[in-house]
């Protein structure tokens, strides 16, 4: 015991704590420089569009007195699903509207409409049914631009499984994602008069396609722009080549008539009473939709912009996603971002009338009429048309994308 030097040890304990200051300082410095890596790359395209802009778009003046900060919460990491917003940021469309937009990426547990309702962001991207559900639970949010006009959800089965319509689900193992992503399946089952509890075996599916490829399930839920592409990027061990579209049958829930509206821009209902926020919303919606129009006509460039913003997806997967997203937006017969009342009605009807296995419906009462507004999207369409842009995308033809192994 004589050798113990209390002073020395106490000093060591204190030393650990004081080391905190240095590490903290180091971390702080690192993170700030890391975040600035997403700084927009100046592109020649911004000058093109400002040339096209006629003189009456006074707001898009060359010089803004100051840029208004605004933030957008996404549902997931940066990927072509959000290309329009990244394009609007990097090509200066937001800046032309005197906006300094911060795009907040999502994560596994990030619920964009909740972030918005809690004031964590100025705008959020969310699927309509999920947002309606949050809305019913008290989130004061409004759909200010219905960007995606149709659902991108598929059910993919092996071609040799004998499944070609939802009626064939009977007696099969049907994968679904749960967490509110499953209602189109239940609507399809209901339409075929199948009892989800007895007639099919519903299996909770991971967010990858392994279960289908390993034939653990007969049909898997997939998004046109992501999981379906993952299938076509995987190597078929029997042939040594990539799987082909003819290896699978695809049920498209939109074509089947049970599609539910997906990505829309949501804003805070409470703050919309404020004229400044209304103005902010208008400018944000206009510039965002301009970004989506740009991505319709420049799919490859937008895919590159998304990759430059840090997406880990391979080049062909990114372009595939961009192209599929374009198909979900275009054509927009009523104008880009303008709600299609029939699609809204269908989404609400399914949300209201289709219980899942637990007997829960998405919402229990019809959403109030102010759940969405076309005010901002229509004004944006007018402004963008005046700039000489095609805002409906009539005559839109998707490009052909060849997927490579691993999406590279």
């Amino acid at each position, binding site marked *: 015991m004589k050798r*113990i030097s209390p002073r020395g040890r106490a000093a060591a304990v204190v030393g*650990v*704590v004081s080391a*905190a200051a240095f590490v903290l300082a180091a971390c702080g410095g*690192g*993170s700030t420089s890391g975040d600035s890596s997403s700084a927009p790359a100046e592109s020649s395209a911004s000058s093109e569009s400002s040339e096209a802009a006629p003189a009456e778009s006074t707001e898009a003046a060359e010089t803004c007195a100051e840029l208004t900060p605004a933030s957008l919460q996404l549902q997931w*990491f940066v990927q072509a699903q959000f290309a329009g917003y990244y394009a609007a940021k990097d090509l200066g469309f937001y800046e032309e509207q005197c906006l300094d937009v911060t795009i907040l990426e999502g994560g*596994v547990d990030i619920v964009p409409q909740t972030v918005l309702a809690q004031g964590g962001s100025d705008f959020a991207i969310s699927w309509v049914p999920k947002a309606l559900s949050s809305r019913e639970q008290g989130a004061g949010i409004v759909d200010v631009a219905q960007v995606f006009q149709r659902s991108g959800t598929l059910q993919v089965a092996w071609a040799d499984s004998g499944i070609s319509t939802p009626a064939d689900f009977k007696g099969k193992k049907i994968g679904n994602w749960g967490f509110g992503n499953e209602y189109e399946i239940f609507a399809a089952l209901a339409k075929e008069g199948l009892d989800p509890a007895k007639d099919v075996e519903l299996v909770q599916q991971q967010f*990858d396609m392994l279960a289908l490829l390993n034939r653990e399930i007969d049909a898997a839920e997939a998004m046109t722009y992501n999981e379906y592409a993952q299938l076509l990027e995987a190597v078929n061990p029997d042939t040594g080549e990539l799987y082909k579209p003819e290896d699978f049958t695809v049920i498209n829930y939109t074509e089947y008539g049970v599609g539910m509206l997906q990505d829309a821009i949501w804003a805070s209902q409470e703050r919309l009473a404020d004229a400044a926020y209304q103005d902010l919303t208008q400018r944000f919606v206009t510039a965002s939709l301009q970004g989506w129009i740009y991505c319709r006509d420049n799919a490859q460039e937008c895919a590159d912009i998304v990759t430059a913003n840090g997406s880990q997806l391979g080049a062909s997967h990114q372009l595939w996603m961009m192209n599929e997203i374009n198909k979900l937006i275009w054509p927009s017969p009523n104008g880009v971002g303008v709600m299609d009342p029939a699609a809204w009605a269908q989404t609400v009807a399914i949300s209201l009338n289709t219980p899942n296995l637990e007997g829960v419906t998405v919402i229990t009462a019809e959403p109030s009429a102010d759940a969405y507004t076309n005010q901002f999207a229509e004004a944006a369409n007018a402004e963008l048309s005046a700039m000489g842009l095609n805002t409906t995308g009539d005559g839109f033809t998707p490009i052909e994308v060849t997927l490579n192994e691993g999406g590279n």
Partner: protein
Amino acid sequence: MSSIATDDRPRRSSGLGRRLRNGGISLLWALAGIGIAVLMWELAKWLGTIMSMPFNTSDMTMPHVWTMIAAMGEPEVRGSDTTVLEAVISATLRSLLLAGGGFIIGAGVGLLLAVIMQRFLFMERGLLPFVIASQTVPLIALAPLIVGIGNRITIGPIEWNTTYSVMFIAAYLAFFPVSVGALRGLHAPTATALELMRSYAATPGQTLRKLRFPSSVPYLVPALKVSAAAAVVGTVVAEISTGVRGGIGRLLIEYARQITSQPAKVYVAVFGALAMGLIVAALVAALDVYLTRHLPKENSA
């Protein structure tokens, strides 16, 4: 790494040669352990080809070990200069930095709480239930909340960002073992020792420095080990749950999405997370060696 983690703490009697020999032996054991794990993996895969196994052993679910090693050298995305291994290493280092920051903040806060609770009995009675309750809140419920609140915080010139939120979550998990362990340690001196201090007319501060801190070390060190592990777990979970860019948690998710076409890639990221845990364990073991260098061996944990 493993040579530090074993029990050969430097003592004045132990010669350098003996320590090196001990270190070498434990390194061999560690390598043998890795070898056995690899063999078991491949054996399970091979058995899967001749009989039905209770789990899927296809190349897509369980890629060969050599496929994983090959995946390390592949470019992260086609045409990029960084290989998967480089990406994983840089992500691991970044997460390590966050975990380290969270650990140090957490340990500091934990120690401070312990001192306060030891000094004032009413604080111990009032605070301890909250300290314990704080750990029963599920992390996945907490993480989005902290990020959501964090998005709105600006402290002077510092704009709060999700990086700080991750560090906060790591610290939140890390402070608990330290505060409980240190509190126990601060209470550890015997009544005789305390009476001796009193007979010297020592102030509470002096008693704390000269008696309570030194005698808390054997309790503190294991607490720091648990706390460091908690900080690592907290960092990875927070990164996964909030999607913060740059760390190993985000990389795990990104690679997991590519599992149908590059199943080996996600395992490389798993190795990164594993390495992170080992590095932190080694660092704490080194700290242990330093803090307990004067203690008789049987006293150290």
